[in-house]
Each structure stands twice: as structure tokens, then as C-alpha cells.
């Protein structure tokens, strides 16, 4: 299950962060998302280490923390998407698929002429779309 998704801007500032958990540990998830930016930074700054992942937006599993898995995605405009999941066995394809849909939703949201680039995304439509994507996560492969 996805517990948290986040959009992080250029200065590593959160543009959108939403947790989908009943357990009320949102703060911890914020911490996890924030920490995962270190990994993104390292992947971006040392592309040698990531090897084949060069030129790919999907960054893969960022780091394993107890009970969570954190995945990353870096758009061409250097906006980062972070996904925190509680499933310990997640298929890469599912995550890729999720990020693709999430990216599309993000692009639509920032294409809004009233959205100022670099500001937080407050669009309600975006939030709804994201929660739909989150809910349908993993269903495609199961079905």
C-alpha cells in the first residue's frame, strides 16, 4: 500500500506531500521523504554509481527503511517524485507505471495557467487524481 507521495521542487522544497495512512504517522513519513532526497542527490551527483539508470527518470528503490520502501522519480525539469510504500514486495513495473501516471497528473496540474511554477500545488483536482492513482496502485498487475 502506498502511504505517502510527494512532489519535491528544485531547492528540495516540498511542493506537494500527501500521506494515505490511517496510522497518523504523517510526520514520520515527511521525515522519510525528506531523507530520501539525500539518496536522490547522490544518484544525481554520482551517475556512475547508478550505472544503467543514467538518463532514466525512474530512480528505483531509493533506500530501505524499516517497514517502508521509498522509490524515486526525477523529471526532466528536476522535480522529484517520492513514493513511500509499506509493501515489502513491490514490482518495479508497478512503481514505474504509478510514476508515469503521477507524472501525467503533475504535468496537467502545473500546466494550469493560474499555477505559478515553483509554488506549492494546491489544486484539488490534482489531489483527487493522485488519490485515485494511489488507490489503483498494484491493481493493474493483480488484475
Amino acid at each position: 500500500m502506498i502511504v505517502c507521495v510527494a512532489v519535491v521542487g528544485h531547492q528540495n522544497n516540498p511542493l506537494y506531500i500527501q500521506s494515505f495512512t490511517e496510522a497518523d504517522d504523517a510526520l514520520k513519513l515527511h521525515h522519510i521523504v525528506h531523507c530520501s532526497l539525500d539518496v536522490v542527490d547522490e544518484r544525481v551527483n554520482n551517475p556512475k554509481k547508478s550505472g544503467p539508470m543514467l538518463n532514466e527518470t525512474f530512480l528505483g528503490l531509493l533506500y530501505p527503511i524499516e517497514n517502508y520502501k521509498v522509490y524515486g522519480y526525477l523529471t526532466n525539469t528536476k522535480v522529484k517524485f517520492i513514493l513511500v510504500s509499506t509493501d515489502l514486495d513491490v514490482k518495479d513495473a508497478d512503481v514505474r507505471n504509478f510514476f508515469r501516471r503521477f507524472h501525467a497528473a503533475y504535468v496537467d496540474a502545473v500546466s494550469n495557467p493560474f499555477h505559478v511554477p515553483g509554488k506549492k500545488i494546491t489544486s484539488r483536482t490534482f489531489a483527487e487524481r493522485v488519490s485515485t492513482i494511489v488507490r489503483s496502485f498494484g491493481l493493474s498487475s493483480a488484475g
Partner: protein
Amino acid sequence: MEEYPEELRTPPVALASIVGCPELHHLISTHLLSEQPPINTLALPDLSKIHLFKKKRDPDSIATSPVAGIFKRDWLLKHRTKIPSVLASLFPSHHVFGDPAHWLQVCSDLDSIKTVIRGRNIKLAVVVVVQSNADEITEDRMLALRKRAEVDAKYVVVLNPNDTSELKQSLTKLASTFSELAGAYYREEGRRVKQRIEKKNLSSVELIVRYCFKVAVYAEFRSDWAEALKFYEEAYHTLREIVGVTTRLPAVQRLVEIKSISEQFNFKISTLLLHSGKVTEAVTWFRQHKNAYKRLVGAPEAIFIHWEWMSRQFLVFGELLETSSKITHGFSPIILGTSSKPLSEWEYYPAYYYQLAAHYLSEKRSALELSISMSETSKEIDNSADSVVPSAYVGQFARLLEEGDNVDMLPLTDEEYVRYAVSEGKRFRDSLEIIALLKKAYESYSSMKIHRMSSFCGFQMGKEYFAEGDISNAKQIFDSIASLYRKEGWVTLLWDVLGYLRECSGKNRTTKDFVEYSLEMAALPISSDTGVRRDTGPAGPANLIQREIVQKEVFELVSEASGLSTNEHLSNLKITGDELLQLEVDLVSPLRLVMLASVAFHEQTIKPGVSTSVTVSLLSHLPLTVEIDQLEIQFNQSNCNFFVTNAQKLQSVEGSNGIQQHRREIAPSLSLESNKWLRLTYDIQSDQSGKLDCLSVIAKIGSHFTICCRAESPASLDSLPLWTLEDCSQTVPIKDPILVLSGQKSTQVEEPDPQVDLHLGAPGPALVGEVFLVPVTLVSKGHDVYSGELKINLVDVKGGVLFSPRDSEPHTMDSHHVQLLGISGPEGEDDQLYSDKIKKIQQSFGLISVPFLKNGDSWSCKLEIKWYRPKPIMLYVSLGYTPFSNELHAQTVHVHKNLQIEGHTAIVLNHYYLMPFRRDPLLLSKNKQASESDQSESLPLNQKNVLIVSAKNCTEVPLRLKCISIEVEDDAERTCSIQHGNEEISNPALLVPGEEFKKVFSVSSDMSSSKLRLGTVCLRWRRDLGVEEKSTSTSTLSWVVTKQNLPDMNLVLPPLIVSLECPPYAILGDPFTYFIRISNQTQLLQEVKYSLADAQSFVLSGYHNDTVYVLPKSEHILSYKLVPLASGMQQLPKFSMTSVRYSAAYQPSNSSNSVFVFPSKPHFKIAASTNSRVESIANE
């Protein structure tokens, strides 16, 4: 790692035992220990102790008895310290080879040793100690010894401790024998145990684990790491299988046993992998280990034991990784596990494991707290836990029952064990351990520049410190991580950290910090609910309501100075009556969110005394409206400061402020709404010129609280760090769209208009060489002039400086082309009076002080400027003065004037040389020069020459000339004599513009030198004063000296000189003789070819062409008789000549070759000639 026993942590070392000859034991054991691999030695002084190695039980009985545990705690220690692999018996040689009684003793000793070691399969070696080389060694006795001991010949070593050369060799042999035997022993033991595994008829699975463990240990003893690893892994996997199978112990203890054994296995495997450099395998292994046991939490009441165990796993692996990474220097990060389960680089950082160890330890703590609270409620207090001790098997515990001397171990029930574990757990302060772990992780991440991760560890660490009550440490850590969250705009995280910081300062009773943190929290951009509800720190949930609550609290605190705070939260904090709490908000302060002041002058420059508008805009992001009592706007000119008072709070402010010398404005309301600019515009005027800069805006809220904001210009207003990310409309501090972009917080106050006239008069272009006077006149028209200062600057018109080091010429004494010589005071006044007031005169810069001038007065002075080169210059004169004598109003006013002055050359000097009339030397060099065009001319040596110097007036004004003379530098030697020398002209000659003045000098060169060095033409002149010329006495006037160097002339000895001699005039039809005198100056005979051309006007007699020989140092005279045929100026017949020796042709010049022919004999009147030798000839 330290909690593991020593024998587990270090790789096993083979053990050998030596018996007999105790004096040699030390020598042997030190040598064995220094071997590679080392061998530990167990030295027995004599045979009496040998029974220690005796096997206590029959090995078959083990198989039949029920298995009590997996393996014994002391088994490994026993093999490392008590049971040797080799036993070496040392016999002195005289015992072996000497007396038969001794030999019998040796035999019986060997027998007893053999019986003891046979049970354990310990290998035997025999050492014969030879005391001296003289000792005889008999072969048959040696053979008997070998037979008796049942050892191979190579296991009998002869040792001679007295022979140093052989001792080393025999010790080495001994060591290799020992290591060979030890290897054999461990191999056999391992094989024996392995066989038992392979039989597969073992009664329980535990035995398989035990045997695998033993095989692995034996393999380690002989450094067979691969086999050790293999069997450790097998033991580990077998152990994992029996988790659900075995029922030997109660459930909790069963799990504890298995886990502690698997922990040891894991430790061994990880160590082996890491030591062989297989970091990736080790990390993968550990992940597998962690995953295998993560779910095995066990019974809920004993869950803390599991967490503690987990924490220890991470800690130990982290430590192992850290020590191994020091050895192996990093790893290859490219191979990150298999593709299906990739390892992240994080799993290679020890910090990651420390962090997780801390995480599990905190899990353990909370579980333990739960267990403690449960056990306390049940009120079961008994001391049974006291007597619980670890039992003989690893991971097992038993109760120690002492009945007199009889000690017995009783098994425990699970309840008892849990109680024991809880009581053990109580003894430790987990939070200290957690802090230590987090600190390790924090520092490790920080050193790797992984700041966010380290901040997270820091946050957890701070929380632990906070919970422990270590406020100062907590505050320090929170402060350091808050800056990162501030920078990156993680508002929710920042909110939480600030909440802790606020609480820390509350506990520390630092009111200022408390207020600052509270205000920052209240101003954070949290508008909607972020979803963080539970698990929040002291900050409370991050939402708008909480922000408002925080703001209210803090404003209550600062307004209620009496300390009547009702909130228990704030009861610690007080602001006493006199204390003033002032917060400073500068450009980088996080409190800019709380209050931001932007100040803009409406004009960029203002006149003194003229008022302009200044707009002060304030912005606050506090959620609730702030009522400001009074604003103080401070400028760098403190008399411009003014106050703005809230009309509604007028009473309270006036009472407290007392007498104010500054301006006070009253605003109807000073309420600062959230995220809305409060704009106030006031007039301002300054009397002082210079920069007027707004420094700060101080808002007073309540009687004890002020916020001092550094003023910022709207043009360079930095956006607020956190709020820019918010999706809210941005407002501007000033409505005027131009001021928003260009408004500045400072303005330039101009100086007052000068009311003094400054005149520069110049009579025209300056002449090079003269001292040119430029009169400067100051006329005061409305201002008094106090402490006036005149600055004079000479600047090249083209922009360059008046200085060129490249072409410095001798006549410019310094390298300046135009120089300011001095400043003479006003006419009619004593120069001496002002000379001390002249402050500074440099070559192109001057500074002079001006005396006090009353309104309407004038003052003048003259600048003396000298040109060395014709060059136009720009003269800048600026006057600075203060119109008031008061020192306080030291407002300087400046007047600037400039004037371009041309510099012209006054007189151009020219010169040329002439030979005497009708006398031409043959100058060989001259002929050559015609072809080579050398610039330096030549003059004939030892002849009288004429030098004509002409001086031409190039200016537009008439000049007076005093004299032209030729002077010689002191050091130069004159090589000629000059007549018509240096007399002055008694009445200075007037030289009108364009006129030329000539002076003739006759120069005769010396015989000796080849160069004619004439010296310098020196011309003294001055401007003609016109009408005043007569009246002024000539002695007072200064003469300008213009000098020009005459180039040196080469002197050449002419070989031939031709003189034409004819009468001064001729009369038509009257014959006369024309002599041509060829004089040979050389010592050689000269052959000369000459020719005389016919002339129209003359009839001549004589040879037209001929060749003559002129003797050395003599003359040859050609004479012709000529009869003039025409009157007037007539050309004589043209003579030309060729010197054969020099092959030089020669022709006299035309000018010397003509004669005037009168029609008839003239009659002359003799006129009186003047005495003056100077002839002034006016050309045109």
C-alpha cells in the same frame, strides 16, 4: 560487539602443550606465538598435571543421553585454552641416552602420556634436549624412543638450547612440527565430527547444529576459512529450521536460545565474509539474517527481548562494517546485489545500521515499559529473579539453587524467565544507548555530507535528549537541524523542531528565545491541515488554529509583564518590569516572516531643507492581527528619526516615553493584518547633505516588547523564504509601480547651491617656457565663506595625465609637460602672508586655503603654470567652503570651474652653416653622403665657417628678444672657437608675429678633433608689454630662456680646396683675370682633371680641359683672362674638376659663381659703417 566473549570475537589459535624441562618453556612458547600462524602454548611443568587432558566421559554416552542444549557455553573456550592439539614431551638427552634407570623413567612417562592423550586423539611429539654438543646420541636408543612413543622420526626433535646457531633452526623445526601435528589433529577431529553428521542417524537436530558448529570451529583452527564458512552457514540454516520443531524448552526460552546461537553464527559468518573482503556478500547475508528473524517476535510479553536482539544485530553488523571498511578502504559500489533485490548504497554505510539499531532499541524500550507497567500492576514481587544465572548451554538460563554447599541448576518457567529479563532490562538506561547510537549515525552521515539523513538522526537524538531532560544538548541539536528545514522549506518538520526548541527555551527560562521560536512558529506558512495529528511533539498539530494559539500565548506573555500568566506552560517565563525585550530582525533572520519593514524614499535625491515623502511598509505573516503601539523610524541622520504613534494607544505610549525631542506623527491605527502590507507615508526633510539612509523600523508592542526590523529597499526586497512557495498572491510594499521596482531605503541629500562666483581668467594661449599666470577670482554673492579650500587640477585635454616617461627630454627638468609651479596671493597683498596657508602644491595638483570672506567680498590669486611642451590642458578649479562658521553645520558647498588653455611654442630656432665665399673644399664624405644620406653633416677641418642662427616668432603676440648666445655645457669640451659671441642686445629687439631674427657666428674648428661640438643656442625673450613697455623697468622683468641644442658636426680634412678668385665686379668690355686656385692639402701628389665650360657673356682665354698634377701641400693656380660681353649679373664660366685619386667630381656652387658686370666704371660714395657687428636683416 564487546558483549561477545573474547574467544568468539577473535579467530581461533591452535593450542599446543609442552611438558617437562620447565626451564625451556618460556623460550618455546614465545617462539611459537611469534610464528605465522601463531600457536598458543600450554606449559605443564611436569607430568603430574597431564590428567587434565583426560576425557571425562565416554563419547558414546552423549549420543544416548537427551540433548539439553545446542552447545555449551564453554566449549570453544575449552578448545582454545584447555585442550591442546599437540602434546610435546621434553626429555633431557642424558635421560634418554644415559643411565638405563633414566631411560626406564622416560619409557614409563611416555606410556602414561599416551594413555591420557589417546582418549582425545591428541598428537604427540618428543623433544630431546641436548645440553652440549658433546652429548652422544646413539641411533639405536633414538629408534627405541620413537618406537616407545609411537611417533614418526620427524616428530622427534632435538633441541640444543646452548647452541644459538642451531637453536633457531631447531625451534623453527619444532614449530613446523607442531603446526603440522595441530593441523592433523583439527583435521581429524573435524572429520570425525563430520562423519557423525553424515551418518544422519542423530537423535536430534540440535546435534547437527552442534556438530556443524564444531566442524566449522576446527576448520577455523586450521585457517580453512572456506570450510568454516560453509559449516557455519549450514549450522545457521539448520538452526533456522528447528525454530518451529523443537519443543525442548518453554516457548520463550526456546526462541531466546535459538536467537542467541544464530546471533553467534551470524557474527562468525559476517566476520568471515568481511575479512575476506566480500562486503556485498556480507551485506546480503545480513539482510537475509535480518529478514529471517524479523518476524520471530515471540510471545507478546517478551517482545522487548526480540527488539533488543534485533537492535544488537544491527549494532554489531554496523560495527563490523565500520572496522572492515577501515581495513579494506571502501568497496566497489557498482555491484549492488542481484538484480531482483538490489542493494542500495545505503546498506554499505555503518550509519544506516546504527540508525536502525537505535530504532529497534527504542522499540525495545517502549515494549519494555509496557511489560514493566504490566508487571507492576500484577504486583508480583518476588526475588526469584535474583538467582537466575546463565546456564551451561549457550542461550539458556537456569535458577541457581544453593543448599549449603550443594549448588544446583533448576530449569525456569517462561514467566520466571520473563520476569528475570524485565528486571535485567530495568537496569539499563536505554535512552543513553539510543543517543549513543544515533550520535554515531548522525556524525557518520554528517561526515559523508548526507545532511538530511543526519538531520533525521539528529531530530531523533534531540527528542531523546529532550525526554531525558538534557535541554542544552537537545536545543543545540534542534537548532542545527532547524536551519536545514528552514532552507529547504520543510514546514511541517520545521514546525515540529521549533516546537521542541520552544519548549526547551521555556524550560531553560530564556524568554527571548521562547518568544522568537513562538513567533517563528506562528508565522510559518501552514494554512491547511497537513494531516499530522498524532505523534506530534510539544508543538502540537501543525495547523492554522495551533498557530493562532501560539501567537496568542506569546503575546499574552509579552503584554502581561506583571507575570500574571495563567498558562502553566508559560509560568516559568517572566518579563520583569524594567526589562525590555527587543527582537532583532535582519535580512537573514527567520523572524523576517514575523515582521518585515520596507522603506522607500519617493525621490532619489533631495535638496536640503526640502521635504520629500518616505513610505514605510510593514508586513507580518502572523495569523492574527498585531496592534502596534508605536513605530520608531531610525535614520543614519539621527535628527530625522521620527515616531508614529497609534492614536488608539496614545495614552499608554505618551506616559512611558516622557519628553521626546523627535518628531511624532499620529496614525489613526497601526494594526498589522496577516499577510497584508501596512503602508505609511510621511514627509521627511534633512538639512544635512550626504546620504540619508533608513536603518531600522522599531515596532513597539505593549510596554516591554519591541521588534527591531532592519529596513529593506523595495527594489532589492528578497522574497520571504518560506512563503514564496505558498500558493498565495504576492503583494508589493508600495502601490506606486515605479517605486516597487526602484524604491530605495536611502536617498541622497544634495548640498546647498553655492553663492560664490569663481572666475578663471586667462589672457590667451600660454607660451612654452614662460611662467603663465592664470588669475582666479572669488566673489561672494550671498554666502560667507568659511574654511574655504581651493583645489586646482591640471588634466590633459585628451584625458591622459600630464606625464610621459617615454619621451623625457633634457630641457624638461622633470617629466611633466605642464607643471603647476605655485600660487601667488592676491595682488597688493604680501605673499608671505599666504605662503604658509598654501597647503600643497604638486606638479598637477594644488590645494590652497582661502581666507574668510564676508558676503560681497572678493579674493583672488594667480596660478603659476609652466609649459614644457606645446600641449593643451584643462584646468579644473574647485572651491569648497562652508557658509556657516558653526562647526556642527559643517556642510561644505562646492563650486567647480574649468578652463582649457592652449600651450604654444613661442620661438622656433633654426641654424645653418656657410663656407667662406668662393672657396669650396672637396669633402669626400659629402660625396659619399649623397649616396648614403647620412644625417650628420660634415664641415671641412681647419677652415673658417659661418653659422647663422635664426629665431622665428611663431606666436600671435609680439615678443622682445634679449640675446642669442651659444653656450657650452660645463662638462663638454668645446672643440671650436666662435666669434661674435654672447653679447646682449642693448635694446631688446621687438619681434612681431612671424618675424625672423638672425644672428651670424663665425666658427673655426680646431685642428685636432674630428667633431665639431658647438653647444646650445640660448635665447632670452619675453612677451612685449605693448604700451607699458616703456614704463616698466627692464630689470624687473623676467626673461624666458629657450635653449636648443646644436647638433654636432663631423669635421673632415678636405684633400683639395678650390678657391675662385675674381674681382668684386667687372666692367663691360674690360678684361679681368679669373684665378682658380687648387690647393692640395694632402701629402700626396694629386692628379686633377678640370674643365672650364664656355659662358655666353664672357670671352675667355686659356685651356678648356686639362690634367694637372698638384704637388703635396702646395697650390696650383689656373688663370684665365675674361672679357665680359654683357652687363648685369652674369654667370662666370663653369668650372668643374675631377680628382683622379679619389675619383671624386667637384663643381663649385652656383651662388659663388657669378659676378656683376657694370656697363661702365661705377663711381662709389663711401658710406660710414656702424660699429655694431650684429646685422639685423629683415626678410620681408
